[in-house]
């Protein structure tokens, strides 16, 4: 028998080797700590570098839609009832006599300066219009995603822990149904039930007519503005108006969130470290929420960012039904009035938000997952 000291020396790998990758563990090479932070930063920077390219692409797409797809872009912008002199002036103003690449260059220059053209319908600069309508959509989408997460995530986790049981089947069917129901039909049904039949919800719009214009605009988010003004009746009124469209919109994404959460959780609950956690004698609550859920946080954040962006899509239809004065309604009204500058401006802004959300998800992913290099 060897002495303890001898054994110690024999068993202990040399210092450097402890952190070096052993040949059998192929795959990701392990690195020392200081450089990991640097690598993480570099990954983020390379990701940021791709953003301008994507933005450039967005501009190409909107330019293409605005100037190449229509048979006569001038008519698309000024409308086909405009008198001839207006059309001619617009043609010159837009530089449509120039070759396409010069037109595109000018368009790009305008975008960079925040100039999205003038809306025919409101005769305001499109940028100004969007700034006015965006907060309402932001308010609606944010409240909706909060509701969707608060219900959808626990529902998905619950179903995953009872895989194959009744609860799981019910949640699965519910998710498929939620996925299949058009948001505008849901909105109409909701109006029918809560507004017409039960009479517990206020009608369409963002606030009751007698509160209109009573509160100063600070943020454009009505629930916050009314709090700033300290006008509680107006706050409750705004909240009541918000509840229905936000609930409809939340249902729209709830199904997707629950479904993804369930799928992620199922994969994690089958993994080895969960067996380890059970073998340690931990409670099932702790295993589910601390261990398995801890591992799905990161992919879940990406899903949430995508869902949030997808809410903008649902918002177009929801806002139309509930007469919610947001970006979606601005977009559809402009569409019906063939107000191309407004349509393209709103489309571009939505694209920008999409890219920003993706970037945010990526950032959070890099911050939260210890494995990201």
């Amino acid at each position, binding site marked *: 028998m060897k002495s303890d000291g001898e*054994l*110690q020396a*024999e*068993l*202990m*790998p040399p*210092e450097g*080797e*402890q*952190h*070096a*990758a*052993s*040949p*059998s*563990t192929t795959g*990701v090479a*392990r690195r020392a*700590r200081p450089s990991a932070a640097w690598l993480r930063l570099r990954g983020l920077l390379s990701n940021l570098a791709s953003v301008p390219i994507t933005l450039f692409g967005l501009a190409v797409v909107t330019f293409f839609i605005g100037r190449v797809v229509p048979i006569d872009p001038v008519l698309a912008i000024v409308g086909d009832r405009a008198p001839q002199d207006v059309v001619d002036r617009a043609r010159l103003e837009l530089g449509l006599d120039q070759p396409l690449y010069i037109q595109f260059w000018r368009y790009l220059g305008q975008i960079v300066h925040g100039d999205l053209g003038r809306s025919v319908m409101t005769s305001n600069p499109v940028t100004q219009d969007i700034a006015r309508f965006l907060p309402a959509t932001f308010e609606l989408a944010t409240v909706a995603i909060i509701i969707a997460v608060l219900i959808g995530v626990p529902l998905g986790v619950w179903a995953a822990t009872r895989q194959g049981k009744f609860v799981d089947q019910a949640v699965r069917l519910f998710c498929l149904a939620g996925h299949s129901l058009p948001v505008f039909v849901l909105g109409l049904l909701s109006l029918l039930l809560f507004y017409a039949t039960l009479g517990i919800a206020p009608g369409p719009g963002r606030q009751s007519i007698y509160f209109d214009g009573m509160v100063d605009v600070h943020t454009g988010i009505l629930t916050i503005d009314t709090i700033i003004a300290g006008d509680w009746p107006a706050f409750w009124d705004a909240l009541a108006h918000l509840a229905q469209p936000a609930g409809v919109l939340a249902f729209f994404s709830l199904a997707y969130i629950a479904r993804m959460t369930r799928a992620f959780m199922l994969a994690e609950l089958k*993994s*080895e*470290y969960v*067996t*380890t*956690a*059970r*073998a*340690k*004698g*931990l*409670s099932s609550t702790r295993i589910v929420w*601390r*261990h398995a859920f*801890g*591992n799905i*946080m*990161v992919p879940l954040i990406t899903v949430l960012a995508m869902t949030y962006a997808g809410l903008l899509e649902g918002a177009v239809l929801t806002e139309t039904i509930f007469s919610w004065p947001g970006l979606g309604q601005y977009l559809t009204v402009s569409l019906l009035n063939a107000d191309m500058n407004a349509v393209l401006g709103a489309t571009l802004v939505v694209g920008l938000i999409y890219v920003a959300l993706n970037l945010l998800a990526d950032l959070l992913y890099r911050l939260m*997952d*210890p*494995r990201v290099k």
Partner: protein
Amino acid sequence: MTQPLVEIQNLRVEFPSSSGGYNQAVRGVSMSLGREKLGIVGESGSGKSVTGRALMRLLPEAARVKADKLVFDGVNVLSASERTMRGLRGGRIGLILQDPKYSLNPVMTIGAQIAEAWRAHNKGGKKEALEAALNLLEQVRIRDPRRVLDSYPHEVSGGMGQRVMIAMMLAPNPDMLIADEPTSALDASVQAEILRLIDDLVSARGMGLMLISHDLPLVARFCDRVAVMYAGQVMETLPAQDLHHAEHAYTRGLLDCMPHLSEKRARLPVLNRDPKWLEPRS
């Protein structure tokens, strides 16, 4: 040895198959274990891992477990409450899994994972738990325990990960350790170290060890007794030093399949499976 730690009699485990029936994974296994080192050897699918997990009641809910007797230190595992089982898991029986790359939680620090195991079975605060974790990392002969404590599993090597796994399972001071292929995922050079570590710790603490492996010579070297399993049944159980005098044809076949340094052979023989081995044994 007064009373065996583990008594298993006629254990049967079935899993639902995709065609609607049941597949038998373990078909009437009996064995007992005191504070000794028992090796369980068999091919993959022979039911050795399932036997170990059945003892901790860690099998998926869909599995059907039946036995005449499945007892750990007086506790009937088949009928014990979930609460009792939670005390048993980790607290009395530790389980070491194959590959630390998968068996450690990738998003928790090593320190947090060991401390959690300690706190599940000991009264004490976070600080005490972390101190205990540090102490345990020293016991598994990690030279820089403080740094490892704050590391994530992907930042340490496979051998180190397995030491962490051992430390974690020793944290609540169990009476028995089940090591399920603890070295198969590791380099050959590290394997011996890990096994010796387990051996030393088990001997020093007077624990029982169930070493599950497909590596017959390795098990023979480290264990007191060896149980050879095939297709969900124990073919024979014999003292490790008598392995070379094994009587059962399957064990002999397994031993025969291995190359020897001392003799020269043109080609290794192929194991001839006798359908008689599959028949239920009394």
